[in-house]
């Protein structure tokens, strides 16, 4: 991001020169039938699922469109005390990295899996910007099922973008850094020699969705911002926007804004994959972590990887080109036909549109203006289809309506602008409130946009909602784009800072939802598949409680003989086999979190009591009329005391004074 100060100045200049065309209030922006168009009657469902990035909260938020109702917050890169994600023993491995356990991140972009360039509703991919990671979520369970760390990278911004058959998800580094096998302990003024911009290609198993860093490309040390794969005729190519071609390393807002043009980098990923397969490139020793969720054991595992294949600029000389793009480009979006590549110079007063055919011709004709760090630079005019003149101020991102138009978000002038891709004429504009970043049309970056709505994700809300102290909600705005004029329908506040989003017709995934996990298929090593199997087992200072939950009791429900300093593992299996009947589990004084256990699932909470005493435990999810009775006690005795380890298991009479079962000791 360039400095806000610059934007601020630009805004002032723009406003004074235009004689103060301040957007009017909502009253004038909203038309009479807006409420009707977003009203989803009780008992009816929304038309689209909208997955919205959570920005600095590290999560993904799921909204229904057109109502704007929040349906769920999905933890991906952040711990979630609500359900124990990242706290339970099973989910802790999901947040492991080569730097250790990292329970937070900055989540920016989302990509829905595609088949033949159309969204297919199988998986959702999410990036972590800070500690470079890419996650895959399974849309049958809405769970994060895989997270892979990226070696040789920092600031995983141009990520995760997918090829049209979900062959690869790509992740370009925002920060150029020395590669992991080089000494990173170097003076910053050696930037130009030592720093590289590495792009990762993560291969995706077409059946299971499993990810694997197939290869990387060591590109020049510039900042990669955003990306999109080609489609149709350009499907073999990937396009990345870049900034800081100046390779500045201080006061970037000035020093990285010197060149009139930065680049869009075009990479033939098919060729790169062939080169990698043919044994080109070097094996770089590094460490990065691959975390996988197993639905049958209800547990994650974390594996450290030691090596990655890296292709150099030299290896890529016929498969990687720079295209000049004015000025500090941000978005890099490919239209549904795959012919037009739209760059958005966020400081430019125009939008350049490149032609895939012209790029191919320029390469064939060797229409190059030179080289940049060994990469051939195609002549701007040779690649350019045309420029959208005076589109607005601060163009950031473009999505497509499927009717031959593009809609671009304007950060500085706070508006959405619709223009025709063929003649590059602006045909409509509508104000947003305020400072819109990304925008999203359901399927709007695929071959088949569902061009009914566009949502603007705004950074500033000021007067839009009831104030909540210095920090205000971010906001999304829904517009109807089915007619000639874009019409504002709805504002809704969002969590975190929404960046990119994805949406698809609801029935593509609602029909596939898993309603509960079959208890017979639960292969968790500590699963308890019936109350009769419940038990307590001591192994030295570790105590394993094999516990079940069902409406409305735990088995066992009272445990005595735990000692201060014991590591107690509550392995709770929810025996329910019914939709929407999770049980919770919490214990007084636990430094960890609570659990929320889905029907048929086993979750483990670790607890290390520090003081002797009586510790109540209970169900936190109101599960039935007798939910409040779903409780028990754990008696903790001082270290070294000889209180026998006993527990009560479904004692029918009130024999709390005489528990009936003795724990096993191993």
């Amino acid at each position, binding site marked *: 991001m360039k400095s806000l100060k610059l934007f601020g100045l630009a805004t002032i200049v723009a406003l004074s020169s235009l004689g103060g065309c301040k957007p009017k209030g909502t009253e004038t922006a909203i038309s009479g039938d807006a409420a009707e168009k977003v009203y989803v009657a009780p008992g009816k469902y929304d038309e689209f699922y909208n997955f919205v990035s959570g920005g600095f909260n590290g999560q993904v938020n799921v909204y229904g469109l057109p109502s704007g109702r929040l349906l769920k917050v999905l933890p991906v890169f952040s711990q979630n005390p609500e359900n124990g994600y990242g706290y339970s023993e099973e989910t802790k491995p999901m947040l492991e990295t080569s730097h250790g356990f990292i329970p937070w991140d900055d989540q920016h972009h989302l990509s829905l899996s595609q088949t033949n360039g159309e969204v297919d509703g199988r998986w959702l991919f999410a990036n972590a910007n800070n500690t470079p990671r890419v996650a895959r979520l399974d849309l049958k369970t809405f769970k994060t099922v895989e997270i892979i760390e990226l070696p040789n990278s920092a600031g995983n911004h141009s990520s995760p973008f997918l090829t049209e058959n979900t062959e690869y998800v790509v992740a370009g580094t925002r920060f150029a850094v020395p590669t992991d096998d080089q000494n990173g302990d170097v003076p910053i003024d050696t930037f130009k020699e030592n720093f590289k911009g590495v792009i990762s290609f993560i291969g995706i198993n077409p059946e299971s969705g499993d990810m694997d860093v197939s290869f990387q490309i060591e590109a020049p040390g510039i900042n990669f911002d955003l990306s999109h794969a080609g489609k149709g005729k350009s499907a073999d190519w990937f396009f990345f926007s870049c900034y800081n071609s100046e390779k500045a390393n201080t006061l970037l807002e000035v020093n990285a804004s010197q060149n009139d043009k930065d680049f869009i980098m075009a990479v033939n990923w098919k060729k790169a994959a062939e080169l990698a397969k043919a044994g080109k490139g070097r094996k770089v020793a590094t460490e990065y972590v691959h975390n996988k969720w197993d639905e049958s054991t209800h547990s994650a595992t974390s594996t450290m990887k030691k090596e990655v294949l890296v292709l150099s600029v030299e290896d890529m000389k016929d498969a990687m080109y720079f295209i000049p793009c004015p000025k500090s480009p941000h978005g890099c979006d490919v239209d549904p036909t795959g012919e037009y590549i739209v760059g958005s110079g966020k400081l430019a007063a125009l939008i350049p549109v490149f032609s895939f055919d012209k790029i191919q011709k320029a390469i064939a004709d060797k229409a190059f203006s030179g080289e940049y760090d060994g990469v051939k630079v195609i002549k701007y005019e040779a690649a350019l289809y045309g420029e959208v003149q005076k589109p607005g101020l601060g163009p950031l991102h473009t999505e497509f309506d499927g009717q031959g138009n593009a809609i671009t978000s304007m950060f500085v002038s706070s508006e959405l602008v619709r223009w025709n891709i063929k003649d590059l004429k602006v045909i409509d504009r509508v104000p947003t409130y305020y400072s819109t970043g990304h925008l999203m049309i359901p399927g709007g970056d695929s071959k088949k946009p569902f061009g009914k709505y566009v949502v603007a994700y705004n950074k500033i809300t000021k007067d839009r909602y009831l104030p909540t102290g210095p920090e205000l909600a971010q906001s999304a705005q829904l517009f109807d784009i089915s007619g000639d004029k874009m019409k504002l329908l709805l504002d809704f506040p969002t969590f975190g800072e929404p960046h990119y989003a994805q949406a698809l017709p609801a029935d593509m995934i609602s029909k596939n939802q898993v309603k509960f996990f079959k208890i017979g298929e639960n292969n968790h090593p500590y699963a308890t598949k019936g109350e009769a199997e419940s038990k307590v087992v001591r192994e030295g200072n570790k105590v394993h409680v094999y516990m079940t939950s069902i*409406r*409305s009791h735990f088995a066992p429900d009272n445990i005595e003989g735990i000692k201060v300093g014991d590591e107690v593992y509550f392995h709770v299996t929810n025996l329910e*086999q*019914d939709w929407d009947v999770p049980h919770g589990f919490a214990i007084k004084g636990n430094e960890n979190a609570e659990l929320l256990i889905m029907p048929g699932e086993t979750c483990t909470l670790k607890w290390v009591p520090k003081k002797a005493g009586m510790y109540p435990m209970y169900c936190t999810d109101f599960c*039935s*009329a007798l939910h409040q009775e779903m409780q028990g006690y754990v008696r903790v005795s001082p270290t070294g005391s000889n209180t026998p380890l006993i527990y009560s298991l479904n004692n029918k009479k009130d024999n709390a004074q005489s528990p009936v079962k003795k724990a096993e000791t191993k």
Partner: protein
Amino acid sequence: MKTTSLKKLTRITLLVCGLALCVSIFVPMWSIYLTAPQYPEGLSMFLWSNKITGDYEIINGLNHYIGMKTIHEEDFWEFKILPYALGFFAFLCFLAAFLNKKLWLSVTTLLFLIFGVAFMIDFYMWEYNYGHNLDPHAAIVVPGMTYQPPLIGFKQLLNFGAYSYPNIGGGIMIGVALILVILAIIEFRKPKMG
């Protein structure tokens, strides 16, 4: 002699009845549906001649609040008998058609009616037993309340609406019973007309 034999149509109908009874062995006989505010999608349970299917395990889970016994397939001795009983009546229908005697039609009809009534009584007794023999230590005890589902039709049981209806198999049984009675009447009125 002539008056004791059956019409051709009667014999064909008997064959059809026999085939239908064979079918009834392999399809659900009875359905019980439960609905409640928390179960908008409803819970259903299907009784076959030899098994129970549907959401009966979920129903078991819910029934523990009121102290109702849990339903287990192995508790029903009927499942061991019913397929053979239905097979036997299918055989009787075929036999009556083959022997072409009014007597056999009457025997088949009479036995099947007895069987049908016994079936319904047995079913009623099961429902009565489940609905009345409740655990006195149950979490929810509503004085005077019993939870016997209806034999046929609808009944509100606390927050649950309970529906009980014949499924394909039950429909076949009722249909066959009706047809047999009608056939018997027709056949016995025939000589008077002749």
